[in-house]
């Protein structure tokens, strides 16, 4: 079967620095795929290329939604990439701090709705209906994520773990095919991490595919169907969790750290 996301030869140069070097990577529909590697390996840069923040120097980014045509994502603006079905979270939290929890999720619906400013001013029936649907859907996402009780709070007032989950809720509101998570467990305590583990599994079970950058090896090993390992912008290994755990190249890249608690 055609993979949902197929990336070939992705290269990104910053001046003289090659941050990504002919990277090949693919994500099968409905799988959780992890991208790991030491700090500075180029993982975040990879997400930035994929989501239109950076324009890759060369390479191909192809998205094939199940049962639909393949489209090329190279060079699209971020909002177009989101419309095609990619949504992401950031390594450092990037919520809209002065909007409420509910508004943060509602804004994710923006790319899936059409209502125009005049419709809003003259309150035509379609607009009112659409607004109601957006609120209902956003609240149901918050319920699923466990933030329903906080929907009127400002995002900036949420505890850290809840902010991380809200980022995921906002991404889900864009109705993605593929969810890109950049170190979602960073800074979480073990309790929050295990909740995150359950949440990501539940999202996958709803039929989404997930590409996960993560340093918490326990989480990576328990969640992933497939793992890619990067170092210095290159792919150095890929395989299932077990083969990665025992791969000498990978162990070397992590400087001999025991990757079980890296």
């Amino acid at each position, binding site marked *: 079967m055609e993979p949902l996301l197929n990336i070939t030869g992705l290269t990104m140069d910053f001046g003289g620095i090659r941050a990504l070097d002919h990277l090949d990577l693919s994500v099968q529909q409905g799988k959780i795929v992890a991208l790991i590697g030491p700090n500075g390996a180029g993982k975040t840069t990879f997400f930035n290329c994929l*989501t*239109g*923040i950076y324009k890759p120097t060369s390479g191909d980014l192809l998205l094939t939604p199940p049962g639909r045509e393949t489209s090329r994502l190279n060079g699209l*603006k*971020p*909002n177009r990439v*989101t*419309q095609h079905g990619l*949504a*992401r979270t*950031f390594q*450092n939290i*990037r919520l*809209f*701090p*002065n*909007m409420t929890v509910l*508004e943060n999720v*509602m*804004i*994710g619906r*923006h*790319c*899936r*709705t059409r*209502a125009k*400013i005049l419709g*809003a*001013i003259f309150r035509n029936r379609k607009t009112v209906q659409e*607004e109601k649907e*957006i609120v209902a859907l956003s609240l149901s996402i918050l319920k699923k994520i466990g933030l329903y009780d906080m929907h009127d709070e400002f995002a900036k007032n949420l505890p850290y773990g809840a902010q991380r989950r809200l980022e995921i809720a*906002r*991404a889900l*509101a*864009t109705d993605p095919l593929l969810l890109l998570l950049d170190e979602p467990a960073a800074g979480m305590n073990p309790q929050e991490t295990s909740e995150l583990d359950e949440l990501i599994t539940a999202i996958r079970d709803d039929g989404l595919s997930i590409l996960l950058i993560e340093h918490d090896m326990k989480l990576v090993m328990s969640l992933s169907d497939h793992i890619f390992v990067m170092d210095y912008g290159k792919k150095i290994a890929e395989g299932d969790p077990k083969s990665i755990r025992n791969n000498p190249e990978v162990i070397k890249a992590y400087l001999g750290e025991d990757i079980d608690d890296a």
Partner: protein
Amino acid sequence: MDYFIELFFSGLTRGSIYALIALGYTMVYGIIGLINFAHGEIYMIGAFTALIVSTVLSIFGLPLPAIIILTLLASAIWSASYGYTVEKIAYQPLRNAPRLSPLISAIGMSMFLQNYVLLAQTSDFLPFPALIPDFAFMEPYASTIGSSDLVILVTTAVVMLLLTWLIKFTRTGKAMRATAQDRKMAMLVGINVDNVISITFIIGSALAAIGGLLIAAHIGQINFYIGFVAGIKAFTAAVLGGIGSIPGAVLGSFILGLTEAFATGYVSSDYEDVFAFSLLVLILIFRPSGLLGKATIEKV
């Protein structure tokens, strides 16, 4: 006491006009971090459009209320199209350029529009028709507040309420707030940021045009240079209130309007600007980010 009240209302009227212009400065700054120096000229173009449209309409012999409403719409739309175009040709191409480039482009646009109106129209002051009649019910209060003051205050209040509602509750308003808080993230949740920026310029320009029409009808004359002076004052008001903050722009405008009115009334009109700018300097010493402005945190 009567004199005090008279000055108070005259300050509110000035403040209203400043607010209508200051909102454009502050919204644009909030969204793209640019001080749009050409904004005062958009206001001036609004006043000129109003002059032309209302003159033509009165030749056709339309009733006054119809003339006012059509003129208001025409100048708002015409100024909005200028604001939109200025952004597209002078700022959008420089979106990723160093901060100074769009600023210089803005100054260039401001000079261009001033000279364009100077050449297309005239350098003289042109009389502006008294669009706002003296209402009979205002007769008893005429010594403290004129009919045009009342119209300006009411129009401004309505416009402010509409704008607040738009920004707080509509889909477009949410997109504007999201873009102001984190432009890159806004794109990533699927917002077409270019559209949001265009809408911001359109709204800001339409508000300025309404201000231009109202003040022209109030004072009774216009020329190509009015945008410069009003623009500087409104910009001052926006900075006073905290640039980027919408309530701040309104608050700053009223404080500035009242200060000027009282300075003119109790001291001398020669000192109006001295008081206005002393106030600005004082406030910025104690609150560098303005009255309601947030201390800026550099985004990464």
